[in-house]
């Protein structure tokens, strides 16, 4: 046997087959299609293929069936996915992950993509004594939650959503679309407290109320009474067959903690996405990067891409330097985008703001600009501006001078162009009104003869109506002349 062998691929174990873990595997499959560089094993606790968690509220709304939100499964020799297997322990000295089926995996590099789980507030009835959700209570984190919720939220049934953040509001919109009667309870002074300012929240709440969703902000729940509803701290009881808990998440960090890896509210990572153990990496909702971004999928996907490039050696220098998190509510008929600095207390003296508040029209826009760069915005009911500003924020490009036009999504007021040519009737053939009048004076009295003389109307044909109108006008002018 030859003593010289081609290097065997390095072993990467990914714990978690959620959106970010699966995306990491997909990126590796793309960068290393023949599996020559690395061999990846993804372990996922759920029995389903990886799916698009972001679209769960769309499943609630009935836009998708559960099988329609599956994510692509890499089909390359270098990627292996094991479903229905959970990691139970991590030994960083042995570089070993223990699995709940009694087996274990050894690794050269470990990727933690364990995600996060719903945080259940300590309210009587919300959690059963065994720590599981109480009767009629569900989170909305996975497909099983989704199925449970759809079984409870039958058309006409009252449902309470506990937590008026993004997920809660998306769930509320989906549920009301399915015919449920929905209340939203938010313990903060206003809904989407972290993402939008109070005036925006007020108008947003009115959008929901228009749909028949009652919004109770600055209200603390005191008790969930199965079969009855949610009792608030003022004694009122909101009727509910089901309680959807969307009151925040907690990173799944137990594996890291157990292995002595540094954990704060998430697994702490640097720009290389490495944890305090350099062979262990963390991406997505379980990770805590100084640049933020947990809770949103786009930063997680960027992390997956960076880490895949690093670990396959396709770009060992790749770095993740933080996200510009952007919140985009997915709620039929409500167009809300928010990002950056928008709360009054965060906007320093150097920041200019433009605010348009139109509660009657259910529209609200706030744009914060510092040194000609967008630093924050809330846009409710301004879809074109939202798309434009999101890209300006994302790319760090300067904002245009006419901010109001930008918010309105309109072209800026045209400037006088010294070179502007005279307006043409027929653009295709550069025929002016004067040309057509001259042809008429020369005896052309029909559109066809005008066309023969001037070529007008023979290009795209878009000016036929204009030429006919000119002809009619000239005809009218002639008959109005005194006979003599």
């Amino acid at each position, binding site marked *: 046997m030859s003593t010289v062998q081609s290097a065997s691929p390095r072993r990467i174990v990914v714990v978690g087959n959620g959106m970010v873990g699966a995306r990491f595997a997909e990126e590796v499959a793309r960068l290393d299609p023949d599996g020559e560089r690395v061999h990846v094993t993804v372990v996922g606790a759920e029995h389903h293929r990886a799916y698009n968690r972001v679209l769960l509220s769309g499943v609630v709304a009935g836009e998708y069936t559960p099988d329609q939100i599956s994510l692509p499964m890499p089909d390359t020799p270098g990627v292996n996915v094991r479903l229905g297997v959970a990691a139970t322990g991590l030994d960083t000295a042995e570089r070993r992950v223990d699995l709940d089926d009694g087996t274990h995996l050894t690794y050269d590099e470990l990727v933690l993509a364990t995600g996060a789980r719903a945080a259940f507030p300590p309210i009587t009835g919300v959690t059963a004594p065994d720590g599981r959700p109480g009767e009629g209570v569900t989170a909305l984190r996975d497909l099983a939650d989704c199925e449970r919720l759809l079984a409870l939220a039958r058309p006409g049934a009252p449902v309470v959503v506990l937590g008026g953040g993004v997920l809660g509001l998306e769930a509320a919109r989906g549920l009301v679309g399915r015919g449920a009667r929905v209340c939203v309870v938010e313990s903060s002074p206003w809904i989407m407290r972290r993402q939008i300012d109070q005036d925006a929240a007020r108008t947003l709440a009115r959008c929901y109320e228009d749909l028949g969703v009652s919004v109770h902000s600055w209200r603390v729940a005191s008790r969930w009474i199965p079969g009855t509803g949610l009792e608030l701290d003022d004694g009122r009881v909101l009727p509910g067959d089901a309680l959807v808990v969307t009151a925040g998440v907690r990173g799944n960090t137990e594996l890291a903690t157990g292995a002595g890896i540094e954990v704060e509210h998430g697994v702490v990572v640097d720009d290389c996405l490495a944890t305090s153990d350099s062979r262990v990496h963390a991406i997505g909702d379980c990770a805590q990067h100084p640049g933020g971004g947990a809770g949103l999928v786009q930063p997680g996907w960027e992390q997956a891409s960076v880490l895949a490039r690093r670990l396959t050696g396709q770009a060992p220098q790749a770095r993740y330097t933080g996200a510009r998190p952007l919140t985009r509510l997915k709620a039929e008929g409500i167009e809300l985008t928010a990002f950056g600095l928008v709360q009054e207390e965060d906007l320093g003296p150097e920041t200019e703001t433009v605010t348009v508040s139109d509660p009657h029209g259910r529209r609200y826009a706030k744009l914060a600009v510092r040194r000609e760069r967008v630093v924050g915005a809330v846009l409710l009911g301004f879809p074109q501006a939202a798309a434009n500003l*999101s890209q300006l924020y994302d*790319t760090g490009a300067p904002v245009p001078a006419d901010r109001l036009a930008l918010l309105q999504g309109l072209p800026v007021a045209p400037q006088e*162009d010294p070179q502007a040519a005279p307006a043409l009737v027929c653009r295709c053939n550069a025929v002016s009104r004067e040309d057509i009048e001259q042809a008429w004076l020369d005896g052309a009295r029909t559109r066809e003869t005008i066309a*023969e003389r001037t070529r007008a109307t023979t290009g795209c044909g878009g000016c036929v109506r204009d030429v006919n109108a000119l002809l009619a006008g000239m005809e009218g002018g002639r008959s109005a002349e005194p006979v003599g």
Partner: protein
Amino acid sequence: MNPAEPAPQSTRTHCPYCALQCAMHLDTGPQGRLSARPADFPTNRGGLCRKGWTSAEVLTVPDRLTSPLLRKDRTSEFTEVDWDTALDHVADRILALRAESGPDTVSVFGSGGLTNEKSYALGKFARLALGTSQIDYNGRFCMSSAAAGGMRAFGLDRGMPFPLTDVGSAEVVLLAGANPAETMPPMMGHLSAPALIVIDPRRTATAQVALDNGGLHLAPRPGTDLALALSLLHAVRARGWVDEDYVAERTSGFDQAWEHAAAWWPEHAELTTGVPATQIRAAADLLGRAARARSAYVLTGRGTEQHAKGTDTVSAWINLSLALGLPGRPGSGYGCITGQGNGQGGREHGQKADQLPGYRRIDDPEARRHVAGVWGVHPDTLPGPGRSAFELLDALGTPGGPRAMLLFGSNPVVSAPDSERVRSRLCDLDLLVAADFVLSETAALADVVLPVAQWAEESGTMTNLEGRVLRRRRAVPPPEGVRTDLEVLSALAVRLGQPAERFPTDPDTVLAELGAASAGGAADYSGVTPERLASEEALHWPVRVGQEPTPRLFLDSFAHPDGRARFVAVAHRPPAEEPDGDHPLIATTGRLMGHYQSGAQTRRVPELHGAEPEVYVQVHPDTAARAGLGAGDLARITSRRGRTTARVRLDPTARLDTVFLPFHYAGAQSANNLTHPALDPTSRMPEFKVSAVRLEPAPTAPGTP
């Protein structure tokens, strides 16, 4: 002269420019000068654009070449020589270079502007007389992504597999990266009734028509069309518009394609494309409702195809069409809008590196056997596949690359990406021969220039954007001293040792041979005869001997062996080059109404030149102001490859991150000084539509670098 009076002598033919191939009358006026006026025909419906109206002027341009030009080295001036001297020189040099470096050292570059007969003869000439595999054509820069996408999905590529007139009765037409109001105005006559959904980074004339008539304009950031198409498929499914029965019965591969679309929910696509999610859903609904009524078309143009992911982007648009159940049914469909006059026929008959006549593959043993039989040679004598257009141009004069090139009907110094690189490759050749009717920018670099006949001076056939074969008629004899391309190929072939009868110079003789060579192939022209052409029969291919033509393809089945159309699983990827601090803007390129391709023809027509005499750069007023530029100022646009000087035009509807330049101009005005030569892995289409650039005032003395 009153144009209403019947002209003394008139020839009915078709326009020299784009693939709409408008019918026209060429009337002979005083002093024998020709003038054009529109003729009634289904595609142009009696219309003509400015280029068509003035097309006869190209026949009498003052700098028309009427004598071969020769120079012994590139530093000296051309001398006029007689034909024998020129052809002998070319043949001698070819033989000498071939003896030194083998047959692949001589290469051929053709054009989508050549007639079917010339395209066919050029491919045959390369394979037999030169024995080279190194032949490709400028259509690679034009139709190759659409062709590859169509081939993958349907097993066959005919730009529009239905007559253009069908489109006019649709409720909705989606135009992705197409601007017919500017590029083929008479086509707009077919688009006045449908609601249009225009996908274009710019508020083009076509986009404005869409908005004026109750349609939509979606303006994606350049390079993100694929994400937008995936998102439209996503929205179409989420909103219940997928034609499940059709997908089950007539297609395969939906689930795999969907997995990629599933990642592009509209709000996600919004951040990447800049198109609001509401617009994506509105477009999905507009299109979906019309599809349900079997009354919708999806058409693509170069804007969405000329990318390093152009083929996948076309596949994404076809996937959308298939999900809606459009292709292969009367009243609906997918098509691409072919650009060059014979962009369709030019890609079917063997001037592509990988192809033999009849849309056959050169690596298919059965195809080789058939074509070799028609040509009277042994199949083993046919070379294999060669380099694609940009790769061919980029290999010229390099070790292992061709040392000679024969160029027909093309001006790659202006039309290819990264012009400076192409120019330097051409300059490294031992022999460059250009057949052209004027001294184009590329011909000016040649050792030998052969003056050839143009459009109305010879007859032939063209295949328009709907796959209809048309008769182009001779209206005047060529000027003295000028030969046709077929005559040039024949004379050279004989000098290279070929029997004269193998390279006929009569176009109809070539057509008959083309018919035999294409018989049984996908693009079967065996039933196209001079008589049927003269009768104005609508000869949509395939036209088999003695059979009816095929106006609508795929009605019963698609051209894959199982009869099903294929969804292709495609994923979005970023462009080859993203803006950065040094090059913060995106430049995209396109066409003007008054010019055609490299401008070699239209810049010589005074009326057209006068209307748009120089390149401009279209910029948002804020972007211009930030660069210190106002309307009418001269700007310098710089990419990592080169720079262009252009006059600023302000457009308040422009995207802030994007500038636009028309690409019809040469030298310091050439937009292709900027463009990126990254190639599509399947079609080898360059990334014309996205380059990262910087915008700044041009140095004060115009013309200084």
